[in-house]
């Protein structure tokens, strides 16, 4: 797999600082699992964090701080509550399609129809239920109506691919979109399976409406 498109430096920096929201973080992790270049980039940014930490002037600790930590060294860490088994619908993927391992603990909904040639499956992160993540499936040779994005969005191609004015995207590639980009993705002969996340948090009641507005343009595609 030859990866041509990576998250930009700014996104990787925010990932490294912990400033990226949970959904965008998940998609970035999925990309990093298969991209050494981005792992190296993140390692460099984390080293910036390490250097900044090391350079901090010492702040005054509580007088008993060291004694308190010392008294806890032999404490057994509290057992984490057993994680609830995720609810994952059968998405009827091709047998050789593996979903990214970062999705293992997530709930994955069944495919929902969203216009001709487009289906999406909502993904819920137990540690960030408000995160906006979904799997997206576009049928072979479907073109999407030209659209822009109101917010920062990351899309990782899992299978198949598409092209638009910004280039050709295949498995492992990360498409990054914000308000500056107007594009018309055109799925290739195999169609396209992606994992996408959107900036911002939404309450459940507003969730579907938000996706409808966002996916609205897809409805006009043929």
């Amino acid at each position, binding site marked *: 797999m030859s990866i041509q498109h990576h998250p930009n*430096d*700014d996104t990787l*920096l*925010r990932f490294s*600082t*912990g*400033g990226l929201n949970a959904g965008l973080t998940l998609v970035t*992790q999925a990309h*990093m*699992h298969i991209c*050494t270049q981005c*792992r*190296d*980039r*993140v*390692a*460099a940014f*984390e*080293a*910036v*964090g*390490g*250097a*900044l*930490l*090391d*350079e*901090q*002037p*010492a*702040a*005054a*600790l*509580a007088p008993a*701080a*060291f*004694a*308190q*930590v*010392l008294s*806890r*060294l032999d404490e057994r*860490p509290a057992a*984490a*509550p057993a*994680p609830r088994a995720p609810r994952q619908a059968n998405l009827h993927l091709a047998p050789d399609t593996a979903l990214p*391992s*970062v999705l*293992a*603990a997530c709930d994955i909904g069944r495919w929902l129809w969203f216009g001709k040639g487009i289906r999406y499956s909502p993904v819920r992160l*137990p*540690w*960030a*239920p408000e995160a906006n993540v979904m799997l997206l499936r576009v049928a072979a040779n479907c073109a999407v109506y030209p659209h822009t994005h109101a917010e920062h969005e990351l899309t990782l191609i899992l299978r198949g691919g598409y092209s638009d004015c910004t280039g050709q995207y295949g498995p492992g590639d990360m498409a990054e979109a914000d308000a500056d980009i107007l594009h018309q993705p055109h799925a290739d002969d195999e169609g396209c399976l992606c994992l996408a996340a959107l900036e911002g948090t939404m309450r459940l009641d507003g969730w579907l409406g938000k996706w409808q507005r966002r996916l609205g343009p897809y409805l006009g595609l043929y």
Partner: protein
Amino acid sequence: MLTPVEMTGPLDAAAQAHLLVLVGQTRDRQAFAQLFKHFAPRLKAFHLRANVSDTAAEELAQETMLLLWRKADSFDPTRAGVATWVFTITRNLRIDHARRQRGIVPQDWAEEDTSPSAEVLSLEAERAERMRCALAGLSAEQRRVIELSFFTETPHAGIATMLNLPLGTVKSRIRLALARLRDLLGTES
């Protein structure tokens, strides 16, 4: 009773690695005391700069040191510098802390595997020093946006407000600073 050892100056990267390996291999409390003396006050300062309360910063510093003790045997000096390793622990704790405040069960960070590639590993030993030089090579403005990226939750909007600059200016300044860092570090794009 064991107390943090009095030291003349901050620990350098090699001394940090030596001490942390000792903690990992022999549960050496004296070595832990030295690491505590170096890192705990810096961790607290780091979190205070991110605008968390004094109580929360203290708690995050102590929790980080406790995790340093528990995870010391998984530290591999060929993979990352100690300060970098400690930074990632405390960053994840800060994310968990924010989630706990909203009543959410934190993520299991152990599942994450984001180890750098082999080429980078061989450079890890020198990285701390090179990083320090690279940071020193940034202009004051560039350094400020990079620092703020690490100290604010919502980098762009937060930094723009803090510096009273338009968002676009902040974005392009971060881009320039990162490009400059990359030049200084001599990494390929």
